[in-house]
């Protein structure tokens, strides 16, 4: 299972001068089990804040975040996360990075390596088993980060602009790989991005947020068959619709 419900979610804080800054304004949405959802918005619209709340890394909020009928309070082993920046532990080699969560769960060396190797294989990095993160390219690091998050077999995978720092080709390649992995592992994915192209390529559903305060502007269902062709007319049409909505409704006031 992996059904996520966001109900009346608000987050705000008081500025130094006493005024209120609303970051997230009454968000309501649902992510179905095994669905791939992209949250799309420009910087400053609170999308990272939203993800951190779902991850349980921040707790200051009103409203509820419910995963499979259970309220999320603090970090939860059912939720995995891939960060925007490089978050691999530089003192551990690739296999020990992937096995980290399993080690924390108390699994023995042999058992955790067996599982970790499966995920290493899944991201096609078997020949880099013993390498240290500093020896890997940006794209490889993020693939290891995906494997590391998946190794604990979470039901929900959160991804915070994981490919944002990569060049366009690597980015397209990783998007394709991510979809393959998603098909194989069937997780619910909440993916944050500011790229319309990325959102249309990846998701079943796109949630567009308005900036300042973060509100849901529009929800699109993308029912193009996969694998999607970025150059096709249908793809371009969806892109145009999303871009139009953003430029009409979601610009900063």
């Amino acid at each position, binding site marked *: 299972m992996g059904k996520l419900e966001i109900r009346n979610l608000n987050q705000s804080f008081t500025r130094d001068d006493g005024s209120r800054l609303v970051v997230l304004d009454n968000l309501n949405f649902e992510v179905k089990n095994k669905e791939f959802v992209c949250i799309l918005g420009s910087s400053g619209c609170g999308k990272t804040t939203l993800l951190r709340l779902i991850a349980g890394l921040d707790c200051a909020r009103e409203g509820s975040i419910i995963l499979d009928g259970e309220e999320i309070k603090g970090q939860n082993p059912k939720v995995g*996360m891939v*960060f925007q920046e490089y978050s*691999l532990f530089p*003192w551990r080699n690739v296999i020990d990075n992937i096995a980290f969560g399993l*080690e924390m769960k108390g699994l023995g060396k042999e058992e955790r390596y067996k599982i970790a190797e499966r995920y290493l294989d899944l991201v096609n990095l078997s020949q880099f088993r013993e390498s*240290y993160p500093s020896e890997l390219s940006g794209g490889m690091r993020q693939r290891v980060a995906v494997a590391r998050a998946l190794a604990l077999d979470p039901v929900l995978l959160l991804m915070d602009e994981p490919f944002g720092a990569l060049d366009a080709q690597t980015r397209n390649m990783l998007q394709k790989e991510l979809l393959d992995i998603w098909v194989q592992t069937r997780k619910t994915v909440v993916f944050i991005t500011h790229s319309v192209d990325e959102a249309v390529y990846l998701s079943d559903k796109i949630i567009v947020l308005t900036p300042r305060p973060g509100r849901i502007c529009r929800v699109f269902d993308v029912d193009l068959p996969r694998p999607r062709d970025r150059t096709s007319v249908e793809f371009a049409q969806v892109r145009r619709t999303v871009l139009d909505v953003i430029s009409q409704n979601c610009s900063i006031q």
Partner: protein
Amino acid sequence: MKLSSDETGRRWLGVLALVLAILVWEVIAAGIIRNSFILPSPVDVLTAFQELIGTGRLIPDFGDSLLHFGIGLAAALVVGIPIGIAMGWSRRFDAFLDPLIELLRPIPPLAWIPFAIIWFGLTAYSAGFVIFAGAVFPIIINTYSGFRGVPRIFVEAGKMLGCTKSSSLIRHIAFPAALPSVTTGIRVACGVGWMCLVAAELFGVSNNGLGMSLWLYYNLHRMDCVVVYMLLLGLTGLAFDMTFRYYIERRFLKWRTGEVA
């Protein structure tokens, strides 16, 4: 590792400087001053070194000095690392201990000698205490700054992977992340501790010791032997530093290679 011809050339420059310094020293000592009490020449020193080997006291000298140094450094590690970790991890503990540490830190280690004698008597522990007083602060400060500088993203990534207790976060995330800084602290501490050694042995805590013997031969007006001990102290200090640079850092911190190179 293969050295480029450029690097080999620079190495030879260093050797050249050493040879030149010894030559100049020989000329001044044997040609101009001609008084082995004021400035023993390299030849005098070499002869004295052979003589000292003959007396058989060099080995016990090393033994005692390493004992004093070992006691001081071990105590500094046992006390300094936990304090550094606690101060780096908890803002409260930092606020609590910082004024005390900042007050004690500027006291020169040698100023502790009177209390060292009163508390520990004329024992190896007394010398060890003086070395401890010099070595503990670099360890505290570097451990502290290492822990303060642990990137938040590592801690959050650890939390997301089920490493949630403070003790596990320290052990599995913060300590390895801070290790480069901690080893720097230990390296500096070795240097400072070793420098305190001569003075720590000056007040007669043992019959042997490199510092002890240096004073002994000074009292005997054997300045050639004094130079031998000076050089031994210097070379041993250098050996510690080399061990750190080329063994410990390569072995435990090899993950950094990509970042430094």
